[in-house]
């Protein structure tokens, strides 16, 4: 590809890294040229994060070599990585919320240990950086007041301020709304024209389609393929990642709605949730969507008793339930798979079995003591049924991949045999292969007569999975789509941005 006269901006060759008990990377190579976007693809656990951490100086590689502009580079600390012109935008931002955008950008770059900081000069430089990126942000705004997308721009500006020529973005769009994603892609294109090499990691194949020049795929710690994007069809991408072909992205589902199971009436809480009413039928998968901040998660939390509602009633099978805590809702037969598994779904330091048992201890308790064997047997049953990949039941939950963590969360609710299951972004951060399995599980639950509410921001997922779609905006239900096969993403977006309820 590149002429010999221009050595690649970054080249990694034969990179290997082992952790105790795991070979995270074996002989992985990667080439990045100036002014290109290289998409790094792979399922969770394929080794993308490890590779990025090596690049960022957070891990040291065991074998292999790394060259920048053709000369060997030694990256053994985050400082060395920065000095080499590498800027990494991790999923969790490294911004200080209480400092301004300007202060965050220049943090650690003060002229001397003890010095006056030239505020005005910094502000001007920050403004120039934002201009260069093509986004307008007030340099003196506190980071905590910025949106996620704006914070991301601050991170990028911070990398540029340190003369980064290689920018790595790890799942940059995970927490962005569709409109913000477009904005980010624009920023990436802008950076590309300025000759910056970008490594872009995402599970969302739409984005890869839209932006990548070349694609490198990793699987199980090994390099599988590097191709020009134009040579690579979407199905092929999935096949390379998963290592087998997937017939389709969504399983087919034949819905025969039964009686009403869950009836929500006039649910309100502050201005987050306003007068929300809907019904869920047995055997039905209802998609709940809308822009970020539309009040979807908040509605789910009210049904689940996680927050206190101002007004409204929730009925399960015709019986009103007044859940003032999740404990009440769980007892009544409602469960919620939260959007953020790590902070809300799992106790990461506890073992997978303990996480599984947490809402089910009553079932396993005899004479005040937990029957660990019964608990273990029940868990083993679900592990094989759901094909959860774990080493043993004593494995800490933190060590599982996203898909398997989600399955453990689902397993604990399946054990409770709940009637109504609310999924909040069930496939966020989960790789393609595991996604399909989760979809299948959701279908199976619907077939068993459970009522399913699935919250998702990914419109293809909503359209592919739902029997019926409810759209919210600014705390209100703005519309309902019953003829899902005929609906388009545009139909949903129209409702998601509507100020008043529209007829679908």
């Amino acid at each position, binding site marked *: 590809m590149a002429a010999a006269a221009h050595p690649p901006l970054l080249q990694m060759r034969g990179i290997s890294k082992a952790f105790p008990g795991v070979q995270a990377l074996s002989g992985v190579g990667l080439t990045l040229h100036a002014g290109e976007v290289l998409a790094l693809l792979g399922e969770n656990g394929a080794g993308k994060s490890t590779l990025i951490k090596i690049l960022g100086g957070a891990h040291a590689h065991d074998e292999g070599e790394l060259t920048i502009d053709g000369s060997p580079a030694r990256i053994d600390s985050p400082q060395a990585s920065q000095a080499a012109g590498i800027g990494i935008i991790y999923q969790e931002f490294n911004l200080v919320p209480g400092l301004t955008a300007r202060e965050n950008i220049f943090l650690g770059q003060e002229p001397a240990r003890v010095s006056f900081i030239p505020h005005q000069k910094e502000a001007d430089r920050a403004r120039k950086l934002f201009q260069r990126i093509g986004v307008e942000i007030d340099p003196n705004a506190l980071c905590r007041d910025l949106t996620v997308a704006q914070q991301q721009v601050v991170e990028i500006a911070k990398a540029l301020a340190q003369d980064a020529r290689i920018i790595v973005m790890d799942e940059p769009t995970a927490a962005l709304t569709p409109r913000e994603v477009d904005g980010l892609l624009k920023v990436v294109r802008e950076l590309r024209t300025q000759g910056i090499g970008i490594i872009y990691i995402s599970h969302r194949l739409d984005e890869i389609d839209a932006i990548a020049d070349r694609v490198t795929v990793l699987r199980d710690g090994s390099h599988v393929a590097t191709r020009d994007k134009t040579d690579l069809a979407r199905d092929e991408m999935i096949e390379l990642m998963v290592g087998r072909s997937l017939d389709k992205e969504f399983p087919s589902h034949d819905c025969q709605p039964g009686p009403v199971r869950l009836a929500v009436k006039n649910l309100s809480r502050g201005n987050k949730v306003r007068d929300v009413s809907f019904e869920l039928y047995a055997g039905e998968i209802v998609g709940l969507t809308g822009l970020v901040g539309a009040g979807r998660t908040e509605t789910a939390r009210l049904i689940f008793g996680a927050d206190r509602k101002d007004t409204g009633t929730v009925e399960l099978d015709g019986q009103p339930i007044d859940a003032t805590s999740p*404990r009440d809702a769980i007892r009544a037969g409602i469960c919620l798979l939260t959007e953020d598994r790590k902070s809300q*779904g799992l106790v990461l330091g506890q073992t997978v079995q303990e996480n599984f048992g*947490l809402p089910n201890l009553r079932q396993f308790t005899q004479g005040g003591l937990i029957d660990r064997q019964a608990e273990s047997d029940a868990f083993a049953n679900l592990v094989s049924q759901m094909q959860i990949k774990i080493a043993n039941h004593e494995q800490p939950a933190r060590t599982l991949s996203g898909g398997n963590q989600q399955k453990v969360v689902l397993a604990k609710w399946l054990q409770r045999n709940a009637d109504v299951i609310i999924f909040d972004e069930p496939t966020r951060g989960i790789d393609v292969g595991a996604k399909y399995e989760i979809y299948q599980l959701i279908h199976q639950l619907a077939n068993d007569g459970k009522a399913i509410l699935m919250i998702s921001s990914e419109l293809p997922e909503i359209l592919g999975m739902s029997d019926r779609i409810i759209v919210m905006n600014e705390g209100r239900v703005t519309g309902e789509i019953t003829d899902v096969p005929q609906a388009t993403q545009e139909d949903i977006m129209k409702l998601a941005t509507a100020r008043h309820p529209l007829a679908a």
Partner: protein
Amino acid sequence: MKDLDYGKLLSDYGNVLVLLILCLFVSFVTLEEQSPRSEAAAERLAKQIASKNSPGANVAILVRSGEGAEKFSKTLETALADAGLTVTTNVVGNPAAARAALESQDAPLPAIAADEHMIVFCREQLSKLAGEFPQLAKTAAYQPIKHKWPNFLKRDNLLNVLKQISIVAIIAIGMTMVIITAGIDLSVGSLIAFSGVITALTIQQLGGGDPSLTQFLLGSAAGILACAAIGFGTGGLVTLFNIPAFIVTLGVMFIAKGLAFIFSESAPVPIEGSFAWLGRGADFFGLPNSVVLMLLLYAIAHVVMTHTSVGRYIYAVGGNPEAARLSGVPVKWVLVLVYTLCGLLAGLGGVMEASLHTTGDPKSGTLVELQVIAAVVVGGTSLAGGQGKIFGTLVGALIIGVIRNGMNLTGVESHMQNVVYGVVILIAVMVDQLKNRGLKTAG
């Protein structure tokens, strides 16, 4: 064969290893020549004689009178009789008495059990006497073997270590639970004083000069329950108003201490009668009652933490309160429960302290909260919550107890002791940090 994960083993049982090394070290520095007149010495001497002589053989005991002589000769006599030998004479006195006793032997005497003084007499005189008295012709004299033994490893000392840590260790059970929920309880030291005073006052009110057992029990219950109620209030403030536990318990610490002085009118409240049973008695196989109570409570706490839903809930609340709540764990009740239990155990500690001194002293318990927290931290419980083991805390309390005992035995002065405690705590926290770092890089 399953591969052992030595790293995990070390991080799980590292403090047990530290305790063992510490015990070895303290044993080494307290190694001393032991008195040849100890009970153990007598028993070993009896064994030695029994092994060199046929069963039923006659033995004479010669002990120079002096301190411990009576006891030594009696122990020796019993031990020899137990070993199947016949004690023909048992003399405690001067060499003249010994000679008279030997001369009056009428059967052949194969062995003499002598102490370190009489052996000198035997060496000098036995050959001369043998000529005159044929029954002494084949007599051999034995003396206790001199030996070194660590003062630390004596039974009484070891029991003393256990007894000294019992109050701190019992309160540390509650503190471990609180710290596993990512909280802290600074009030336990003051609660010791408060409970002691309440207990003493109640017993005084009910029983006057000659309280009965029921009145002791009622008094103790009053002290313990009052502290449990305070703990309940602490838990309520922490959960309902979302005030950091550090602040709430700091406030409670001052309140409880103040009330202890007010109720007792700033003077220790004496307790009449046999209230010392708990603090000083030793009714179970020679184990001090406080130690038996401690071990019993640790066994119960271990089962609660590892085999009941309450235990699981406590770990879950400390590990991730939001995930626990969304999994149906009654988070607030769990928090109230651990603070109540911690208060209750501090109240029990106060009763034990009062029993030990037969007074309810408002000055007692000062700074004990720090010793308790130290035991928990040294025992490997993370202040960040979610992790920790009940038995780890017991080991932590033992580590601190052994260090204190070792320093007392070797005469390290008390200010230096404080410096050492501080260093031990810092090392424990550093180890905890390193362990966490290990977790992060592995995950």
